[in-house]
């Protein structure tokens, strides 16, 4: 059997796509183990890399947390809502939470199903745009000035506060803050501006 995304030879299923959005959707919709295996091969090595930075090079802990992250990706895949963001953003969130949970801090989260949620009213159908979100995010990131990207990456991957980034890079705190603000303006413009 041949479909556009995978081939099945006997009992062996092989996914042709390496697109995390496609793979995560299959894991969610069909509990598809072959898609999960492909997703693991694609993202687990990167998650471990992130955790190595976050744990300052602790290999054992990074391996352990990577397994925990991928287990959660499997378990929670049906809860992923692609209308709210990309698969890789969602997976980043799971990896970040695993890191926080390891240090046993509670973590209040945005709850998209909060009954108290205030909406802006009916939105235009954005289905076509959602398919392109990962592409738009990629573009937004590649056009981000280097100093701004540096500040974001330090916060994301080394768990540093802005004050810590300022100290580590010998940069005034006000400068770091303004880089973050400019980065967020840039990203919003880049992500909203293209349709």
């Amino acid at each position, binding site marked *: 059997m041949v479909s556009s995304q995978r081939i099945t030879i006997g009992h062996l299923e092989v996914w042709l796509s390496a697109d995390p959005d496609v793979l995560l959707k299959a894991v969610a919709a069909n509990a598809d183990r072959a898609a999960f295996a492909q997703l693991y091969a694609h993202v687990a090595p990167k998650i471990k890399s992130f955790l190595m930075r976050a744990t300052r090079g602790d290999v054992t802990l990074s391996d352990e947390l990577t397994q925990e992250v991928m287990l959660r990706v499997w378990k929670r895949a049906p809860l992923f809502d692609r209308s709210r963001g990309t698969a890789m953003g969602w997976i980043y*969130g799971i990896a970040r939470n695993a890191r926080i949970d390891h240090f046993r801090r509670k973590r209040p*989260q945005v*709850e998209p199903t909060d009954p*108290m949620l205030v909406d802006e009213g009916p939105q235009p159908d954005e289905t076509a745009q959602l398919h392109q979100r990962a592409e738009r995010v990629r573009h937004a990131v590649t056009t981000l000035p280097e100093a701004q990207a540096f500040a974001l990456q330090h916060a994301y991957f080394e*768990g540093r506060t802005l004050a810590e980034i300022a100290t580590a890079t010998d940069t005034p705190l006000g400068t770091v803050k303004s880089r973050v603000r400019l980065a967020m303006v840039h990203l919003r413009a880049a992500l909203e501006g293209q349709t």
Partner: protein
Amino acid sequence: MIPSHHPPDEWLLAHIAGTQSEGVDLLTASHASYCPQCRDRLADLQDVAGQYLSQMPEQNVSGLDALLANLPAQEQPQAPRPSRHGFPAPLERYLGDGDLEWTYVAPGVKKISLGFSQSEMPVRVIHLAAGMTVPTHNHPGLERTLVLSGGYDDESGTFERGDIAVADGSQPHHQRIHKGAPCISLVVADHPITPVGIKSTVLSWFFES
């Protein structure tokens, strides 16, 4: 009604990066329930983190077979639980299912102190009666407020449901609660506040926990 006073950018980034204190994270997540604009910005930041994650170098991993051999059942989406007290869901998780247990502070003032795992910052829900005026006070550190219902005016503007206010020690302020309904807010302070003037001693009672 969409909020007009938002959290600073650095709170949003710290929320996504997982570097924020629990109390400020609770303010940020609860504000987001009221604010579609900040939800969009948080989604942007998370997707950008995902994009950087996908650009990470790859480290050797070897756990796939072990996972495949023991995959558990997947979770399925649940119908959202109704809001027990009419507050945003992130805050409701701290309040439990019972009736709210207010502690009397002073005439027109009551509070609930939230139990936090590690945060050293006092986090409280504070109820101020309609029409009352909170005496002038200032703060040795930051006082961060999210209005949950009702509203107030102070030297820096008008604050209503969903609005975030950050007061630092640079200028004393006093809040005039709007008439008609009490003002309930979530407050995260760095330190106990300092009353200014004799009438304000009542304020120090806020911070007996």
